């Protein structure tokens, strides 16, 4: 459902193929098999697990049942973490948009007459991917650590109260999420702005639209597809992220997000039904949020 937003640009314009070709189905076969094996099967297994109840005989293992109370329990127990996940992900998406849009605009429009610089700038956006996401996040932990340069300077300036760390706070977690997802926001925005016909902006200026008005009435609506793809690509993984918020990285017990809770339930507490129920709740919540978002911004309005 959410993925229609990404393909909105092409699917809206082209009429649906009228003739069903067996070759097309054949070509789709590997994809379908892949989805069945690695998406549908685990999903069904997850649904079954989420309704399991503890085995009355063997402690620590679970048997199939229809224990829907699992969902009520996890929602009651982890409501705070769920809300925090949504809040952190939304803030990170907002900050990523505030950074990604100007960046995409700069690369896609300002640098358009200089293809070499444009290519170089794009490489710079993608360059962090050459280093492991975990290592980069750990590096930020070092930079933000109590003995690190930033805490030192802020402490010396008395901005940071004594005994207050930067890591383990909501700030550092949102910072980490923003930092890690900026490229996912920038690239789709860049892609739509790179194909924006600049003559339309000239027409806007010619028709008495000041640069600000032309930006609001022409540039922004025409880049909406990119903004939408970027926000979805950022919000969905950020809401389920468990690296940035974990204690080993930029978080603490005060910043636990739903991803951390699921991880703990699966790997530490080995409460598989709870973990499965939480995963499904997260999935459903994101699906509902995204479909509301897509409907509200109106895919059919996008070109």
């Amino acid at each position, binding site marked *: 459902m959410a993925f229609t937003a990404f393909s909105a640009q092409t699917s809206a314009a082209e009429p649906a193929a009228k003739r069903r070709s067996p070759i097309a189905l054949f070509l789709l076969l590997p994809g379908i098999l892949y989805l069945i094996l690695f998406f549908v099967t685990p999903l069904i297994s997850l649904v079954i697990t989420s309704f399991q109840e503890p085995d009355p005989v063997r402690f620590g293992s679970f048997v199939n049942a229809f224990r829907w109370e699992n969902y009520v329990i996890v929602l009651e127990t982890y409501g705070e973490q769920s809300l925090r996940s949504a809040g952190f992900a939304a803030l990170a998406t907002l900050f990523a948009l505030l950074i990604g849009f100007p960046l995409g605009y700069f690369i896609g429009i300002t640098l358009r007459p200089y293809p070499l610089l444009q290519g170089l700038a794009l490489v710079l956006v993608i360059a962090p991917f050459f280093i492991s996401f975990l290592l980069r996040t750990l590096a930020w932990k070092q930079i933000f650590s109590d003995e690190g340069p930033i805490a030192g300077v802020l402490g010396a300036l008395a901005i940071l109260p004594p005994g207050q760390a930067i890591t383990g706070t909501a700030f550092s977690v949102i910072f980490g999420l923003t930092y890690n997802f900026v490229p996912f926001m920038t690239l789709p925005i860049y892609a739509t702005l790179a194909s924006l016909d600049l003559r339309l902006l000239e027409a806007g200026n*010619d028709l008495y639209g000041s640069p600000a008005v032309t930006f609001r009435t022409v540039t922004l609506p025409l880049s909406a597809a990119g903004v939408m793809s970027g926000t979805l690509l950022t919000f969905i993984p950020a809401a389920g992220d468990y690296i940035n918020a974990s204690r080993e990285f930029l978080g603490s017990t005060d910043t636990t997000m739903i991803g951390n809770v699921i991880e703990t339930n699966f790997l530490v507490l080995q409460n598989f039904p709870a973990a499965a129920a939480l995963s499904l709740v997260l999935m459903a919540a994101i699906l509902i949020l995204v479909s509301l978002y897509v409907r509200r911004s109106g895919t059919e309005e996008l070109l």
Partner: protein
Amino acid sequence: MTNNEVPQGGFAEAGADLELVGISKRFPGFTAIEELDLTIPAGSFFALLGPSGCGKTTTLRLIAGLEEPTTGRILIGGRDVTSTRAYQRPVNTVFQSYALFPHMTIIENVAFGLKRRGIKNADPLAHEALQLVELDHVANRKPAQLSGGQQQRVALARAVVNRPALLLLDEPLGALDLKLRRQMQIELKDIQSEVGLTFLHVTHDQEEAMTMADTVAVMNKGRIEQMGNPQELYELPHTAFVATFLGQSNLFTGEVTSSGSSSISVDVSGTTIDVRSDRAQRHRGRVTVGVRPEKVTLYDSAPKQSSDRNVVGPGRVTDVSFSGVSTQYEVTLPTHGVVTVFSQNTSITAMHHDGDEVWLSWDVGHTFGLADESYTAAGSRFQDDTDTSMIATQSREKLEAELGAD
């Protein structure tokens, strides 16, 4: 109206004068416009005619405010607008690429300018403008659902609806078929005379320029070669470029042998061609003279010499193409090369055939003398490099020159 505001409310009462003073535009590596001075009086329909790459579109963009001149000033209605931005100028453009906003409906497109200027009844006015171009029934569609010709008419409506003091048209009829083009030419002319706006029309189509404009300026290599009303330009071109770009011309180069008060005589490979002094740009030395193909008459035998006619011949008809109203002959003369003649098909006996020996004659008063010293092979002063056959010709010439062939 202050300098940094969008012009608000009301429409231009009438067209405004446009004045370009010493405009130059240099881009890295080349000069698009060189010291251009131009005055377009209010309410006139002015055409800037020239081949692609001659600087006419750059001129238009400078006036619209989409480019900044390297030197010079632009005045609209006496007010210096050189330093103002595009959105502050009382100017609207019909873009060659239409540049319709793809995310807006047709009516939103047309009302865009009105809304930016805070005009109250923007939508009814926009509908009126759409009625003018007969497209009101598609007001709620998106540009992508319209044909090229319809889009062009929307672009026209979107500019005209603002009643700007100066309307700039950048090849606005390029994508229309002949019938619609004629219709739009008439409509444009009507709008212009009805509203009294100043129109500046940029085109490479000489016929369009001549039929629509009061004044035509022929532009070449960043300069205006000649300016005047269409008839004047056609009957008395001043340069070889104008003579060949605006219609067809037969040109001859030779030395002036005698120069009287009323006419000069030019010796072209042994034949004397007379030109009236007031129709010649230069009166001594090596000059190029010419005549339009339809002014030349063909004769089967040598016509009687007379002082008011130029006679050239004999030559041989090498090509005849019949087009109904007229017949086009190509006559090859051993001393003067190929001469084109248009002959009205008014008499059934006057047909000439391939290989016939003919003499050419025309009125001395139809001869014009050009400012150019000499004129070499057709079209060599300008070659349209956008045309693929021209690119092929050029590369072939380059290759031949390299191989030393001729």
